[in-house]
C-alpha cells in the first residue's frame, strides 16, 4: 500500500507551482467596455472594419444567443456565469495590422518566447523571402499564428505559404482579403445557433486563424496557432476556419495557455473544418489553459465547439487532443462524414487533477457510404478531478457499410476522483458495424512493483505506465507536439507520481 499512499500524497502536492505558464504580461491593452449587448457586437465589428454582411451575421447570432440557455447536461459543476461581467474585446494597443514582427510589441514577443514559441527565429526566416527558408537545425518548420487575448498578433512563414497558394492568416485578415471564401464557409459547419457557446462566439468572436489549402496542395509545413489569454476579466472567443480543397492536405496544431488568476475566465472558441474530395485535415490540440489552484480556485472554463465536415468523397478529418489544462473542459470535436468513404478520427488524452472537471468526447455522424470512424479516448483522473467521456456515434440509414470502433479507457489515481463514460450509439443501418469498448482501472500494484524491481523510481514507473496508457493517442501527434505533450503529461501528474 505505501506506494499508493505516496502516490496519493504526491497528487496533493501538485499545485500551481507546476503551471509554468502562469505569468502575466504587462502590455498596454485596448478594451471594449465590460458587458455584452448589441452595441458591443457592433463595436467589435467596427473595430475590425468588417463588412455589413458579417455584422448582420453577428447580430443574428446574438439574437439567437439571447433566446438560448446554458447547457447543463454535462457532468460538470460551476457557479452561474455572469456574461455581463466580462470584457468581450481586449487587444494589445498597436498600429493596425503589423506588417512584420518589428511592429509587434517586444513584450509580446517575450511572452511567446517564454511559452516556447520560436516566433522570432522563424520570423527572421520568414523575413528572408524565397530560398532562404530552409528548416532551421534540420527541424520541420512550423508556421505560427499567435493570438493574444482577442487578436492575432503575428503570423510567420506567410511568404513561403503564399507561394503554394496557401492562405494562412488571422480570420480578420481573411475577412478583409478573402471575403468570398469566408462568406462561403463561415458557419456552415457550426451554425450560429448551434449551441449556447457557439452562438456567443458567433456574436463576439474577435479573432482566430483562417486556413485555405488549394486543390491538390500538400501543405509543406505544420500550421500552428498559439492562443493565450492574458488580460484580466476577458473572455477569449476565437474562431478558426480551415478549408482543405480537393486533394489538399494540412496538419494544424493548436496550443493554449493563460496566466494564473483567482477568477474563472471563459474561453468559448469555435473551430470549423471543411474537407472536400480526397482532402485530409489533421487537427492537433495541446490544451494547457490555467487549471486553477489546488483548491479549485480560478482557472479557465474551456467551452469549445469543434466540428469538421468531411464533405468530399474519401476525405479525412482527424482530431487529436491532449487536454491537461482548464478548470472545466466542455468539448466534443466532431466529424460529419458526408462524403462516401470518408474517415473521421478522434484521439484524446484528458487529464483532470486537483479540482479539474472534464466532459469531453466526440460525435461521429455517418452519412455517406462506407464511412469509417475511430475513437480512442484516454481519461486520467487524479486528486478530486472528474473526467467524463461523452460521445455519440450516429449512423444514418444510407450509410451502408459504415464502420466505427471506439475505445475509452479510464485510469484513476486516488480514491477521491471520478471517471465516467457515457457513449451513445444510434444505428439505423443494417450493414453498419459498430464496436465500443471501455475499461476503468487504476495503476496496479504489480505493474509498479515490476518497474521498481527493475530499478525505476516510483515517479518514473508511474510516468512510464501513464505514457504507455496514452501511447495510442500520443503517437498520433506531430513530432514537435508529441514531445511537448509528453512533458505536459509529466508536469500535470508530476506530483501524483511520487
Amino acid at each position, binding site marked *: 500500500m505505501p506506494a499508493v499512499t505516496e502516490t496519493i500524497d504526491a497528487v496533493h502536492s501538485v499545485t500551481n507551482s507546476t503551471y509554468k505558464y502562469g505569468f502575466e504580461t504587462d502590455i498596454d491593452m485596448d478594451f471594449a467596455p465590460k458587458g455584452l449587448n448589441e452595441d458591443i457586437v457592433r463595436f467589435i465589428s467596427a473595430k475590425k472594419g468588417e463588412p455589413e454582411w458579417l455584422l448582420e451575421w453577428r447580430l443574428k447570432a446574438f439574437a439567437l444567443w439571447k433566446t438560448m440557455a446554458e447547457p447543463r*447536461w454535462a457532468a460538470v459543476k460551476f457557479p452561474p456565469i455572469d456574461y455581463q461581467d466580462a470584457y468581450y474585446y481586449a487587444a494589445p494597443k498597436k498600429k493596425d495590422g503589423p506588417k512584420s514582427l518589428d511592429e509587434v510589441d517586444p513584450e509580446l514577443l517575450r511572452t511567446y518566447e517564454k511559452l516556447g514559441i520560436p516566433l522570432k527565429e522563424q520570423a527572421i526566416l520568414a523575413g528572408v523571402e524565397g530560398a532562404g527558408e530552409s528548416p532551421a537545425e534540420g527541424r520541420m518548420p512550423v508556421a505560427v499564428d499567435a493570438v493574444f487575448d482577442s487578436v492575432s498578433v503575428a503570423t510567420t512563414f506567410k511568404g513561403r505559404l503564399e507561394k503554394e497558394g496557401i492562405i494562412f492568416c488571422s480570420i480578420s485578415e481573411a475577412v478583409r482579403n478573402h471575403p468570398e471564401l469566408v462568406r462561403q464557409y463561415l458557419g456552415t459547419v457550426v451554425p450560429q445557433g448551434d449551441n449556447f457557446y457557439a452562438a456567443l462566439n458567433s456574436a463576439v468572436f474577435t479573432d482566430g486563424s483562417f486556413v485555405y489549402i488549394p486543390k491538390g496542395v500538400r501543405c509543406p509545413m505544420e500550421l500552428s496557432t498559439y492562443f493565450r489569454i492574458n488580460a484580466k476579466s476577458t473572455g477569449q472567443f476565437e474562431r478558426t476556419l480551415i478549408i482543405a480543397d480537393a486533394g489538399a492536405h494540412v496538419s494544424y496544431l493548436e496550443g493554449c495557455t493563460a496566466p494564473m488568476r483567482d477568477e474563472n475566465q471563459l474561453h468559448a472558441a469555435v473551430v470549423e473544418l471543411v474537407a472536400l474530395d480526397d482532402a485530409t485535415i489533421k487537427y492537433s490540440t495541446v490544451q494547457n489553459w490555467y487549471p486553477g489552484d489546488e483548491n479549485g480556485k480560478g482557472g479557465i472554463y474551456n467551452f469549445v465547439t469543434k466540428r469538421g465536415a468531411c464533405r468530399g468523397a474519401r476525405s479525412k478529418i482527424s482530431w487529436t487532443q491532449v487536454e491537461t489544462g482548464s478548470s472545466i473542459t466542455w468539448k466534443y470535436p466532431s466529424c460529419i462524414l458526408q462524403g462516401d468513404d470518408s474517415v473521421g478520427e478522434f484521439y484524446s488524452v484528458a487529464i483532470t487533477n486537483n479540482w479539474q472537471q472534464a466532459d469531453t468526447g466526440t460525435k461521429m455522424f455517418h452519412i455517406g457510404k462506407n464511412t469509417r470512424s475511430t475513437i480512442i479516448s484516454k481519461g486520467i483522473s487524479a486528486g478530486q478531478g472528474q473526467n467524463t467521456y461523452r460521445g455519440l456515434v450516429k449512423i444514418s*440509414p444510407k450509410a451502408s457499410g459504415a464502420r466505427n470502433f471506439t475505445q475509452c479507457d*479510464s485510469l*484513476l*489515481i*486516488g*480514491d*477521491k*476522483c*471520478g*471517471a*465516467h*463514460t*457515457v*457513449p*451513445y*450509439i*444510434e*444505428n*439505423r*443501418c*443494417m*450493414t*453498419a*458495424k*459498430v*464496436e*465500443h*469498448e*471501455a*475499461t*476503468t*482501472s*487504476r495503476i496496479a500494484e504489480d505493474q509498479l512493483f515490476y518497474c521498481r524491481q527493475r530499478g525505476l523510481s516510483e515517479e518514473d514507473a508511474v510516468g512510464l505506465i501513464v505514457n504507455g496508457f496514452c501511447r495510442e493517442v500520443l503517437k498520433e501527434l506531430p513530432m514537435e507536439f508529441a514531445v511537448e505533450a509528453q512533458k505536459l503529461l509529466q508536469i500535470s501528474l508530476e506530483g501524483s507520481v511520487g
Partner: protein
Amino acid sequence: MSATGDIIMAENALTEPGASGFLHRFEGLRARLPGQRLPWLAARREAAAEAFRAQGFPTRRVEAWKYTDLAPLTQAGFGEALTSVDGAMTLPRAAAPRRVVFVDGRFRPDLSDPEAPVRSLAQHLGAAEGLLGSLARIEDLPLVALNTAMFEDGALIDLAPGEDGGVVELLHVTLADRPVAVHPRHLVRLGAGAKLVLIERNWGHGESRYLNSPVLEFEVAADAHVTHARLQQEGKGGIHLSTVFARVAEEGTYDSFLLHAGAKLARSEAHVVLAGPKAAAHLNGAQLLGDGQHGDCTTFLEHAAPDCPSRQTVKTVLAGKSRGVFQGKILVDQIAQRTDGYQMNQALLLSDQAEIDSKPQLEIYADDVKCSHGATVGELDEDQIFYLRSRGIPEATARSLLIEAFLQEAVESVADETARAALAEAVSGWWEKMA
C-alpha cells in the same frame, strides 16, 4: 342502485388521453382501491398521485427517455379492467410446477396453485407495510408514482430466513378486449439465506391496445439468492412499462434475465443496489423485436458496497421496422472498492429499417475497480451463412441458427434449469415466426 350504475359507467368509459386522464381515473377510483382504510397506504397513494401530477408522463426531453416515446400511451384513453370471473380462459402452458395467476392486475385464486408461497397483496396489505415503497422511488419516476397511486393487487412473497421458495411462475394475463390500463404491484422479500426462483411472465393476446405497468420490489437479505426470469409476451397492441427495484445485502444475489418478445411498446427499467459487501447482480436480457415493435431495456446498477461483482449481457435482435434501446448505467460509489463490473450489449440488425440505440454508461468514484463495458452492433455475418449453406443448410435455417446462437449466449447465463428452459422456449423459433 344508482351508485352501482355509476361504477359501471366509470368502468366502461375511456379516460381522456394523457396524464390528466389517469389522474381523473384515480379520483374516481380512490375510494375503492384496496387499503384505503389503512392510513399509511392511503397517504402513500395520495403522495404518489401528487408526484405523478407534478411530473406527468416522461417526454423525450428527459435524458432517460431520450429514445422511447410514450406518445402511444399519452395520446390514447384507457379504461379500467372489468372484473372478470371467466374461469375457462385460455392460458399459456405453465412454465413451472407451481403457478399463480393474475388477470388484469387481480389475483385469481381459482387459477393459482395454493401451494405456491404467494399471497394476494390486496388481501394482505397489513403485511406489506414497511415493504411497499421501501425501494420504489416516486419523486423522479412518474410511472412508479402512477403505479403506487393506482395498483389494484399483486403478489406478496415473503420468505422467512433460510426458506426455499422453490420455482414459482407468476403469470400476469391481460385480457385486452378493450383498452384497459392495469398497474400490478409485486413485493418480494427474502430473509437471510432464503432462496427463490421467480418466473415472471406478462402475457397477452390479441391486437388491442392496453397498458400493463407493473412495479416490483425485491428486498434480498444477506446470503439470500433470487433468480428473476422475466418473460414479456404481451399482446401485439400492448404497452408494457415495468420497473423493478432490488436491494441486495451482503453476499446476496439478484440474478435476473429479461426477455422482451411481445408488446408494441415495451420498456423495462431495473434499479438495483448492491448494498452489502460481496452482493452480486446479474442483469442479463434479450430483446426480440419484429416489425412495428419498440423494446427498451434500461438498467441502473449501483455498487454501494465493496467487493461486489456484477455482470450484464443484453442482446437485441431487430427485424422489420423495429427499434431497440439499451441503456445501462453502472454507478460505483466511492466506498465500493474492488468492484468487478462487466457489461456487454450486442445488437443484430436483420432489416434495413430497424434502429438500435445503445447507451452503456459508467460512473465511477472508487479507484480500485475493474469495470468494463462493450457494445457491438452489426448484421449477420455473410461468411457464416455461406459456410452453413455450403454444408447443405437452407439459407432460412442458416439465418435462424445464427440468430439463435447469438441469443443462446445470453440465455445460457441463467443458472436455473426451469427458468432457462422457459426462456429458451420463448426464444426458439422466433425468427421462423417472423419470416
